[in-house]
């Protein structure tokens, strides 16, 4: 277990976990697990003293340790999940601390903690049920233990803040006192557990302070980049600047005499590294190392060749038809008024502020990695594959991440690199840190795409048909090509789905044609916070405004008229319009834009208030954002995520762009890959309009409404639509 918040603790001491022989044979992909059921861990000879079940451990001093199996990268899931467990457990929140099981422990205990991956805004919404049941099961066992001790029936006892009372005899005890007895009881049947009505919540649903703030204020928090191990060496690596290129040779004699250098090593077919006593020495020597690359055929690629390829996809025949309702092409052809637009969005790097890094130690029969990861189990698998050490002899020490945003999920390229280096230094921990330049030029980028939209309006301005064609790179084709071998990749159309529940389009058109032309490039792509909702919301929501303008209708009214079948989308749009006082005139020079979209199971809408100076400089004054995420677990953290989403969205809107020249990424550091600063941060107002009939995500869904709301406001201000991002390349006036 890794302590997850221990304000002043800086060492990385951890409990030794004894791997049971039967459990060790379990694979990573066990389909069945019972996060709250089965024999108690103590009865199986596993787990800690005081462990009531996988999720809850109570110490004699009343400390209530809640296990959190998801990664914390700033999004607040740690606190939210602890709130959900504590709510059902009915412990005293002041006694709560958290710890994190490792991937190795999860494997050894047959995945008792379920999936550990943290992405897709799933951290809470896909584990809320079993963690709440885990908390409730522990409460039932603790109450049973108290009742047994008093020789009364369990329904005669009650609990509040971890204090158990038998009212009839006025006896009281505490969770800490009965924990050992409770740990020996058999867990209740999970099906028998009644969870609380969320409207009766007292811990969950409240804007409680984060549990993990204290050590972020005084430098004592240890990120993976800060790990220090006895005998550790440091590494700096460089991969071929052109994706798909190969390492041909390097002249290590030129750097082997440099200060601190231990050795130059080949990491893989495309990567070389210098290992030195300090990272600074490794970095300096690597910069001086003569390297010969075979850049391969992709060196001929550029942003221009890629844009041409995508443009061809906008009108190509035989593409994937995702939705076809009625006959949109005919309806458009027959309509008296047509609206058409082509939009484009670029590749984007994640730019986590903590660069890619991992510390690996490989011995003959043991491999370990200290890593910032969104997916511990993927880290474990990468470590095992790369080291050749069996899974059950591998362990992952996952440290809270200095930003994730989708970069540190399934691919684990930096873990593979660190492991490949460490394998060449048996028993020596090797800390690999990428330079910012390496990080920005060797990402799994947000895919590039273009979108052509054509609509037909009738004489009253009502849309009679809409044709949407997205052309661009596919994440699935890069990461899991067999899944989309036929080009049918609905994932790239996220937010345009007919199906309710996850990323449903909020409009109904009498005739609708939705297509995707897969146009892959040599650039590696992957999920980037918000994934495809960000681009797809720009296309749809800006085009809706273009249609409204052509129809002579207010954009809000135009949307409302199309949303009769989608009351949840509409309710969020109405909520944001009301809060932003949409109908109220703005001061001279200030303009408003509105947008709504759905992703990650949540409904979002935004109103932006902006001005554009006579010189064409954009100023975003105010953003009002509404979200219905179903069950808000911590409104304070939801607001924080919305505020962060505004910054993330505005950065992409204004500056975000990874361009390609001679097959490589041009932007290398923050001087060219710019991130928005505080001075440009608008006032953000968050409104949460929950309906408590589903569980939606929070970390991603509001990003996608930021850009289109601002772009629509720019259109209102200048009379000209913006159709290509980022704005740094666009003359607004």
């Amino acid at each position: 277990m890794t302590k997850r918040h221990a304000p002043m603790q800086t060492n990385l001491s951890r409990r030794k976990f004894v791997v049971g022989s039967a459990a060790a044979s379990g694979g990573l992909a066990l389909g069945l697990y019972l996060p709250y059921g089965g024999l108690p861990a103590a009865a199986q000879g596993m787990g800690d003293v005081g462990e009531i079940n996988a999720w809850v451990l109570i110490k004699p001093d009343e400390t209530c340790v809640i296990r959190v199996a998801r990664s914390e990268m700033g999004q607040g899931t740690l606190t939210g999940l602890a709130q959900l467990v504590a709510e059902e457990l009915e412990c005293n929140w002041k006694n709560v601390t958290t710890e994190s099981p490792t991937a190795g422990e999860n494997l050894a205990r047959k995945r008792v903690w379920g999936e550990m991956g943290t992405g897709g805004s799933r951290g809470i919404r896909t584990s809320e049920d079993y963690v709440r049941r885990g908390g409730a099961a522990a409460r039932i066992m603790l109450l049973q233990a108290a009742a047994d001790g008093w020789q009364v029936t369990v329904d005669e006892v009650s609990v509040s803040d971890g204090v158990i009372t038998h009212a009839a005899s006025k006896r009281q005890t505490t969770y800490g006192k009965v924990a050992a007895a409770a740990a020996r009881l058999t867990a209740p049947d999970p099906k028998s557990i009644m969870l609380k009505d969320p409207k009766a919540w007292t811990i969950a649903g409240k804007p409680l302070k984060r549990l993990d703030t204290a050590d972020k204020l005084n430098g004592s928090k240890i990120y993976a980049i800060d790990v220090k191990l006895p005998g550790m060496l440091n590494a700096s690596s460089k991969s071929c600047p052109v994706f798909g290129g190969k390492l041909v040779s390097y002249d290590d004699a030129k750097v082997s005499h440099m200060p601190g250098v231990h050795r130059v090593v080949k990491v893989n077919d495309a990567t070389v590294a210098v290992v030195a006593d300090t990272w600074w020495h490794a970095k300096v020597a690597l910069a001086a190392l003569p390297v010969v690359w075979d850049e391969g055929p992709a060196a001929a690629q550029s942003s221009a060749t890629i844009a041409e390829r995508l443009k061809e996809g906008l009108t190509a025949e035989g593409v994937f038809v995702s939705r076809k309702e009625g006959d949109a092409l005919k309806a458009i052809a027959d309509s008296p008024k047509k609206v058409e637009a082509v939009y484009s969005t670029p590749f984007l790097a994640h730019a986590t502020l903590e660069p890619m890094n991992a510390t690996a130690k490989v011995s003959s029969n043991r491999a370990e990695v200290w890593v910032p990861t969104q997916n511990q189990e993927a880290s474990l698998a990468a470590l095992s594959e790369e080291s050749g050490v069996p899974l059950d002899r591998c362990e992952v020490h996952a440290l809270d991440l200095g930003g994730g945003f989708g970069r540190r999920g399934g691919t684990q390229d930096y873990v593979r690199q660190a492991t490949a280096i460490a394998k060449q230094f048996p028993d020596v921990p090797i800390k690999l840190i990428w330079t910012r330049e390496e990080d920005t030029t060797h990402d799994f980028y947000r895919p590039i795409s273009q979108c052509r939209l054509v609509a037909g309006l009738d004489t009253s301005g009502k849309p009679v048909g809409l044709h949407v064609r997205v052309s661009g790179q596919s994440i699935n084709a890069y990461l899991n090509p067999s899944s989309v071998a036929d080009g049918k990749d609905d994932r790239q159309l996220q937010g345009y789905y007919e199906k309710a529940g996850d990323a449903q389009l909020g409009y109904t058109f009498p005739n609708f044609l939705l297509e995707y032309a897969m146009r892959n490039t040599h650039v590696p792509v992957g999920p980037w916070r918000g994934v495809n909702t960000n681009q797809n919301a720009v296309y749809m929501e800006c085009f809706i405004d273009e249609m409204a303008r052509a129809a002579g209708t207010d954009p809000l009214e135009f949307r409302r008229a199309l949303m009769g079948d989608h009351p949840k989308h509409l309710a969020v749009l109405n909520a944001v319009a009301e809060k932003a006082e949409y109908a109220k005139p703005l001061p001279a020079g200030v303009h408003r834009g509105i947008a709504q979209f759905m992703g990650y199971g949540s409904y979002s809408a935004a109103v932006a208030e902006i001005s554009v100076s006579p010189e064409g400089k954009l100023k975003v004054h105010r953003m009002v954002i509404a979200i219905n995420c179903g069950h808000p677990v911590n409104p304070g953290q939801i607001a924080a995520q919305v505020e962060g989403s505004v910054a993330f969205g505005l950065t992409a809107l204004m500056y975000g762009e990874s361009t390609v020249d001679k097959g490589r990424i041009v932007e290398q550091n923050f001087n060219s890959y710019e991130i928005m600063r505080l001075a440009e941060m608008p006032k953000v107002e968050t409104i949460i309009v929950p309906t408590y009939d589903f569980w939606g995500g929070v970390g991603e869904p509001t990003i996608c409404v930021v850009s289109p709301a601002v772009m629509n406001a720019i259109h209102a201000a200048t009379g000209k639509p913006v159709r290509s991002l980022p704005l740094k390349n666009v003359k607004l006036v």
Partner: protein
Amino acid sequence: MAKLNINGKVLEVSVEADTPLLWVIREQVGLTGTKYGCGIAQCGACSVHLNGGLVRSCSIPISAIKATDKIVTIEGLSPYSSHPVQKAWASLDVPQCGYCQSGQIMAAAALLKHNPHPSDKDIDLAMTNICRCGTYARIREAVHVAAGAKSGGNAAASAGILSEA
């Protein structure tokens, strides 16, 4: 050999003259609260105080530091996180991932030392460190709170659950 005064302690380090102060702090002195983000003085994650002024330590070679210079890192800002900036940051739950926050706090502390009651414009000009999580709105509030211009409290109060549809 270079003599350094870091957080009130005098230390001797043996490094090449062009080694950046950041990597001396992290790898020689062993204080890891000061972060590497870009190496080119763009992001401010490496911000420390040099004789009371704010500097980006990734771009200062150790040869530029004199034995009489006083360097303060996040670890030396206050005992027990008691600096008004740290308290304000805690009261508003400013950090998300936290990686940039050492630098943000050092920048805010330097600002308030020279300008105890900064305006929003002053904050815009002084607080130029990158936060990729986007905690800027709370950073601004927290600087005002630390300056005593506003009371602390729970930023979450501004995000109450509005209504139940």
